[in-house]
């Protein structure tokens, strides 16, 4: 879906949320265009599965619409709040998945073009997702928020309801674990060839 952004495109999320709560339907469209891709991507990274990520993204956005009339301006950023809700919804689903082995989890879908030169890149991104899936969920969330979504440590701390120091620890351990998993697949991913 292509969503055209109107004159409200430059307004902050919080202001748009107020407009939505006041009955402005265009604000909902603008917020969806702005926030849904981030929410969906975050859910996809945490769950490693597309259809569940889709459900989580829709659910998280629904919670945003419902809280809009009671939103207290200046207390939290809309994006930070959404990342927290998304992560909590993902954790719920991952808990329900207990007993499911890693092999049972579907590979992320390859939605890129099937050009030969891009296969290796795609394989590496998928390998990253595989490696992320093997991390404990809190490490995974911290790494994704820091290194893929680009949030600052204080923002992650707020989103995950932990201290900034704990964020540093989680991201550092997460990256080390990722490096170990990826190193074991170094040959498969063609890094030896790259080095030549």
């Amino acid at each position, binding site marked *: 879906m292509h969503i055209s952004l109107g004159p409200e495109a430059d307004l902050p999320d919080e202001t748009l949320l107020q407009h939505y709560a006041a009955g402005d339907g265009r604000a909902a469209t603008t917020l969806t265009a702005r926030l849904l891709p981030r929410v969906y991507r975050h859910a996809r990274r945490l769950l490693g599965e597309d259809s569940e990520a889709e459900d989580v993204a829709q659910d998280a956005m629904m919670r945003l619409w419902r809280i809009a009339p009671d939103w207290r301006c200046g207390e939290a950023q809309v994006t930070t709040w959404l990342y927290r809700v998304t992560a909590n919804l993902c954790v719920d689903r991952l808990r329900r998945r207990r007993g499911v082995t890693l092999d049972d989890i579907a590979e992320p879908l390859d939605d890129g073009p099937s050009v030969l030169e891009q296969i290796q890149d795609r394989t590496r991104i998928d390998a990253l997702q595989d490696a992320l899936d093997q991390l404990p969920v809190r490490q995974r969330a911290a790494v994704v928020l820091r290194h893929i979504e680009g949030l600052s440590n204080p923002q992650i701390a707020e989103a995950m309801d932990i201290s900034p120091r704990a964020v540093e620890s989680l991201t550092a351990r997460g990256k*080390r674990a990722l490096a170990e998993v*990826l190193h074991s697949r170094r040959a498969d991913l063609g890094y030896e060839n790259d080095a030549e």
Partner: protein
Amino acid sequence: MTQNDKPDPVSVDVLLARARDTEVQLPPGLAQRVVADALNVQPQPRATPRRRGGGQRLLAALGGWPALGGLVAASCTGFWIGISPPEGVIDAGALLVNASSPTIYDEAAELTAFGWDVEEG
């Protein structure tokens, strides 16, 4: 563990950067469903209450039409008692000339009751 066995942190950074730059393709229909959800649960704009005039605000402060009716009835009763007080009751006019007993009331009758009591005998 040899130097070659160590994980390569640069590779992780490169992969994370590529993941960051990867454009997200939303599943077909997801954005439409989210917007439809938003419109379904959107609060309805509140109707702006009409501004009431001074008379209506006073009426509301008094308690509405029933209270106003009671107020008018009580006022009429008080007025009637004021101009035609029962025998033995000092009226407001008598008090103004310091009448404090029925005797004085009798003397002050012409001043206080417009002579109606004299006519009545």
